[in-house]
């Protein structure tokens, strides 16, 4: 179904020179362009972070390898983790939220367009600051360079005593700066969702993507601030002679852990909840059924948001908390499995009885369901604290969280890319190349991350630049490394598809998927003002109502 957009006569000449077009992009406050900037930025860092992973895996391909020095390896895992979380997944999610939310709720833009632009550039600058450490980090005695303290930067390793030079400072400052950007975007999302829905779209009728991003934004507000506070304290310690984490002066290293994980755990929900949003939009469309249990999905998400603020010390089961404290965190961690499981069942029920079209977005989202199930179950295993006393800080937990982040989040992100690429670019992607990407990537994913659980069970700790032979870890590490190259091939197919399709893809039209939410009502790509007219919104699927006037949703909701 397509609509005409109103032709505008431009008062000024259309910019054609490269400089003029770049200038438009750099100074834009339009949510669609900022969304695309976030996404392209994240894509670049995905490749860089991936390269860091490849370097580590080559080093670990067999015991006592010499591919990189321990110093370089330690920088690699620090940068890989920090990059992937703060400069890949978060910008991807902010980018899609930016692009989609106004379109899906019938708004013209986000609530604060200039704050939006400011937030993007702060995030971007944070990433550049982090990577500048590779060239600019030299401190005293040449110690410096990229941070090598791990992405959670435990004290007192980060004190001036143990981290001389400026590498840790780059870690701190880049995250402080991008944290400001994150909070800015979160404020924008909340204000937009609460205040700018179009007529007829009550909170109970807005797409699940809007609900989930609202929850994510709330978590960002509450969770990023503790990290900011902890980092300010670390700066006070490093530069003003403070003693927040100075164990020699009676300070507490455990306090850093508490503050960090109070941020760190909700952070992973910040990463995964938008992934749930993508699944919640894509699975119904490709199953040709409404999402099963919309109100329960909303309630479960809000529950997850709240409970996620109470589980943080399950990252600290081995630091010597009392048995009472450990027991409490087992309870809260187990509890969060319930609403999360409910969501999996609801997606399953959406597919049930449907007519599933396994186009590329659905392939990725179906794989997400299987993989997220497994990731959730290995999470439950670690929630049983004594089991975690063996599994934590080993390759088992690395396998678990990559299962969530790659197998869960990245898969839905790929799905989202393919699903909304036609809307953003006006062109269809190449289906065959998309399927090639899917199969290469899923084979590589399982080779790497299924087998990665085993060295963990066999006692291999994390963050080691090499390992002894004779521990039974060798063959598994080999398989894990080989899988990485399949994933890399898949990502190359993906990038190739994006590029080829952008210029040579078939014209998509406004609604290539026969979908039901408002963004498909306008052209592909949408005009700068988004909507010339907005259809009547009486249900959660306004376009279903338009296409099925004899059987509209609002009769059943």
């Amino acid at each position, binding site marked *: 179904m397509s609509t005409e957009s109103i032709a505008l006569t431009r008062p000024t000449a259309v910019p054609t020179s490269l400089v003029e077009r770049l200038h438009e992009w750099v100074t834009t406050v339009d949510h669609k362009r900022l969304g695309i900037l976030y996404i392209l930025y994240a894509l670049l860092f995905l490749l860089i972070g991936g390269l860091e992973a490849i370097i580590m895996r080559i080093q670990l391909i067999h015991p006592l390898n010499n591919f990189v020095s*321990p110093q370089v390896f330690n920088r690699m895992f620090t940068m890989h983790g920090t990059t992937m979380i703060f400069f890949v997944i978060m910008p991807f999610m902010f980018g899609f939220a930016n692009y989609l939310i106004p379109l899906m709720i019938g708004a013209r833009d986000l609530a604060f367009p200039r704050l939006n632009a400011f937030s993007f550039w702060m995030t971007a600058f944070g990433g550049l600051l982090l990577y500048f450490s590779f060239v600019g980090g030299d401190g005293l005695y040449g110690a410096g360079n990229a941070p090598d303290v791990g992405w959670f930067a435990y004290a007192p390793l980060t004190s001036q005593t143990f981290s001389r030079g400026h590498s840790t400072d780059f870690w701190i400052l880049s995250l402080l700066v991008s944290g400001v950007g994150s909070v800015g975007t979160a404020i924008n999302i909340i204000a937009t969702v609460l205040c700018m829905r179009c007529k007829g779209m009550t909170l109970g009728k807005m797409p699940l993507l809007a609900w989930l991003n609202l929850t994510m934004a709330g978590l960002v507000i509450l969770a990023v601030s503790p990290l900011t506070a902890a980092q300010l304290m670390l700066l006070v310690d490093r530069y003003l002679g403070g003693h927040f984490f100075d*164990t020699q002066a009676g300070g507490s290293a455990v306090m850093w852990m508490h503050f960090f994980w109070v941020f760190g755990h909700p952070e992973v929900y910040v990463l995964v909840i938008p992934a749930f949003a993508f699944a919640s939009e894509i699975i119904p469309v490709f199953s040709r059924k409404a999402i099963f249990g919309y109100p329960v999905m909303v309630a479960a998400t809000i529950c997850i948001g709240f409970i996620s603020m109470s589980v943080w010390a399950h990252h600290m089961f081995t630091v010597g908390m009392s048995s009472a404290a*450990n027991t409490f965190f087992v309870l809260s961690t187990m509890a969060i499995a319930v609403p999360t499981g409910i969501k999996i069942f609801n997606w399953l*029920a959406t597919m049930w009885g449907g007519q599933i079209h396994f186009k590329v977005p659905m392939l990725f989202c179906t794989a997400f369901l*299987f993989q997220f199930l497994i990731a959730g179950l290995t999470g439950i295993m670690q929630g049983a604290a004594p089991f975690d006393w063996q599994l934590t800080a080993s390759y088992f937990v690395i396998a678990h969280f990559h299962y969530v982040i790659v197998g869960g989040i990245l898969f839905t992100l790929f799905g989202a890319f393919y699903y909304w690429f036609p809307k953003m670019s006006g062109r269809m992607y190449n289906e065959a190349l998309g399927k090639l990407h899917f199969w290469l990537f899923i084979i590589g994913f399982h080779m790497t991350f299924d087998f990665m659980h085993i060295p963990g069970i066999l006692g291999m700790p994390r963050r080691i630049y090499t390992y002894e032979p004779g521990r039974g870890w060798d063959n598994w590490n080999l398989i894990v490394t080989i899988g990485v190259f399949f994933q890399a091939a898949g990502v190359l197919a993906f990038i190739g598809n994006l590029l080829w399709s952008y210029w040579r893809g078939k014209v998509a039209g406004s609604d290539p998927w026969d979908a039901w939410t408002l963004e498909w009502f306008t052209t592909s790509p949408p005009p700068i003002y988004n909507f010339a007219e907005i259809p009547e919104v009486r249900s959660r699927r306004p376009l279903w109502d338009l296409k099925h006037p004899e059987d509209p949703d609002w009769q059943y909701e």
Partner: protein
Amino acid sequence: MHPSFSPTNIFAPVSTPAHSIVDLSVFVLIVTAAIFVVVFSLLAYAAVKFRKRGESDGHEPTQVYGSTQVELAWTVIPTLIVVVLFLAAARVIASIQNAARPSNALEVTVIGHQFWWEYRYPSLKVVTANELHIPVSNPAHPTPTFLTLLSADTDHSFWVPRLAGKTDLIPNHPNSMWMDPQETGLYLGQCAQYCGTQHAKMLLLVYVDSREDFDRWIRQQSRPAQVAATASEGRRIFETTACVSCHTIAGTRANGTFGPDLTHLMSRQTIAAGAAKNTLGNLIAWIYNPALIKPGCEMPSMGLSTQQAAEVAEYLATLR
């Protein structure tokens, strides 16, 4: 190949805490496997059965918006499962963390350093490094070992999978753990909390000895250093270079505590916290330039010539 598939296999426990963890793990694995089988089958079934076949005829399937009963079912059942898992875990937490310390328990203080382990037996007045000896425990009359975990610098973690779950060593935050290994032998592990450049080579070697062997080891460790007269040049270099400011050799001028106690260095199978075997060649290389074996460790190269390094090594080789 090690009989248990790996010398650090968490599913090959020989000590009560490790056993309790395995028992709990098996229970959790069975429950999660059951959940996996059920949900996976449903997902696979749905993906296959409801796949669109043939051309799209424009008909949409029946729209189903929800079902309160179904939602209730898959809320209540997981909640019950979660409660069961929680109770199982809570029991094991209590049994391990709140275990009483019997009066015949051996007490060892473990102090984590970048990148080596210091062991002190306060009641037996023994100080050693990197290779821990503890007595085997008879399940009928247990003689567990209780470790007090401290740190001299950053965070570390003591992880010997076959003996117990890991516990962290955090400065200004003493922790404790216990183990009662029921089979003699050498048990391996390594530091499990990133502590800096050479975290990877902070290995753990725990020798579980029979009672007689353990007592013999204690007696040997309690003797003062034995030095053969022929190694005096090495000893002279050792005592006039800064070696003495980091290392202790009981009964000599060397009384530094930044690095491992070397009094009975030759009673150990490895050097550099397990990074290399304790051979004369390795010892010479290590003294000449530690970065050859463990680049980024805290022991500097003292600028000795290879000849001098060999002489010092010869001296250290007399320290039984």
